[in-house]
């Protein structure tokens, strides 16, 4: 039997909220599909669109921007800037022809482990539904 395909999702987490939320999900043993690869940055404002583009070109089936809720940024307004960059990136990727689901933004607080796990489950299902990224290298398949 062929093994079920697990998408590969690059997850950018800010140190203070979403990474902590992801830790919280772990502490709470909130089971998630093994789809994400986390990259810790201090603030969502550090998530360079260049990293996102690289992840997508490397074959990432989706990239998630995560950080503190608007207003809760540990660094005052880094997440606001992240949001702006995300919006611009979103337009570019849409124009390039990438599906909407492949770039997402989600705010997760340090105490939202359950929400975090739920979100990862949801995203993984969404990506499974649309299949592997068309940017994956052929030899990867």
């Amino acid at each position, binding site marked *: 039997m062929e093994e079920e395909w697990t998408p590969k999702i690059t997850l950018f987490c800010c140190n203070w909220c979403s990474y902590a939320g992801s830790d919280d999900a772990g502490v709470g043993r909130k089971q998630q599909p093994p789809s994400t690869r986390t990259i810790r940055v201090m603030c969502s404002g550090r998530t360079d669109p260049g990293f996102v583009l690289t992840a997508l070109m490397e074959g990432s089936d989706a990239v998630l921007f995560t950080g503190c809720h608007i207003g809760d940024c540990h660094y005052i307004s880094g997440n606001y800037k992240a949001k702006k960059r995300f919006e*611009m990136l979103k337009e570019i990727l849409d124009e390039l022809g990438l599906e909407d689901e492949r770039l997402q933004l989600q705010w997760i607080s340090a105490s939202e482990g359950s929400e975090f796990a739920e979100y990862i489950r949801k995203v993984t299902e969404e990506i499974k539904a649309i299949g592997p990224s068309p940017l994956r290298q052929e030899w990867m398949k």
Partner: protein
Amino acid sequence: MNIGDRIVAWSKDEEIKKEGASGGLVTSLLTAALKGELVDEVIALQKKSEFEGVPIRTSDVDEVIKCSGSLHAAPINLTKFAVRFFEEHPDGTLALPAKPCDARGIIEQAKRKKIDLEKTYLIGLNCGGTMDPITTMKMLEKMYEIDPNEVIEEEIERGKLIFKTKKEEKAISIDELEEAGYGRRENCRYCEINIPVMTDLACGNWGAGKNETFVEIFTEKGLKLMNNAIELGLIETAPATEKGIKIREKTNGVMEKVAKKWHEKIFVPIEDRLERLHYYMDVMEDCIDCEACKYVCPVCACDESKCIDFYDPMDSHKISIYHLVRLLHLSDSCIGCGQCTDVCPAEIPLTTLHRRMADRIQTKYDYIPGMDMKIPPSFEVE
């Protein structure tokens, strides 16, 4: 004279008047700016032939005079020459003639602190589009059946492109030329900004009589340029006629309409996502990593930069990160000047690609780059 005035003007210097187009006003303003010590240097386009203009930076009045005359097949952007000037002379002052895309590049650089706009006199030039020299020479041979070397003058009038040799004068409608793949550069065809309202004053022949230039003054600096030249006795002015003003407006309106049509024609949406993706992958496949598009770009302020840093030729990505980062970085600031397409040795239609992105971003954020000092969305702070 006041800000907002629309006038006609012409050079009083016979030599300039003879060589220069439309009464030689622009050359006179530049010369006057140097003579009146309004600026330290000016940038002018030195005419090598009808198909080759080389920008020079000079403080020598005679050199400036030699540069008189208009060139349609010299699609060079002067922004980076202005940037170099301020790199060498951070406190210097500069005057230069500026097509809308020159002016827009300069304003974008001013936002990036590379140009001091307060110390830059922008003598705006109305522009209906420029032509690629090589294409133009081919066009002369094929469409006009004229030896390019014999051309002594060119002009655009009533939608027609006119070439003159010593023997003859031939006019073909621009539409016809462009349908055949000649005429203006592609980005010029859909450019809707013909009158450079972001400069200090805009000069052009629309609505002007023979041997005079129609001028609209926008700023204090524009006023200064005019008064300086008048005081030095280099130019003469007269109020623009109502009829002239109307003609200018009408011409501009027609140009805008044509541009919109071209825009629709060139930017046909590719509805299918995958098809779109493949379009981008296919066109960028030929890139040879020469980075010329970056160096020539008038709104890019970087030397070494992220687009190069993030790119590794070993990556074998389906679309190179170099271009992706540039597409993103320029999406709010691209002015559609066409320089990148012009220089690309692999003939990638880069300007079109950039405009596809930029149209979306610039519409989304209601931001038109290079029109004023309003900051781009990516600069925005809370």
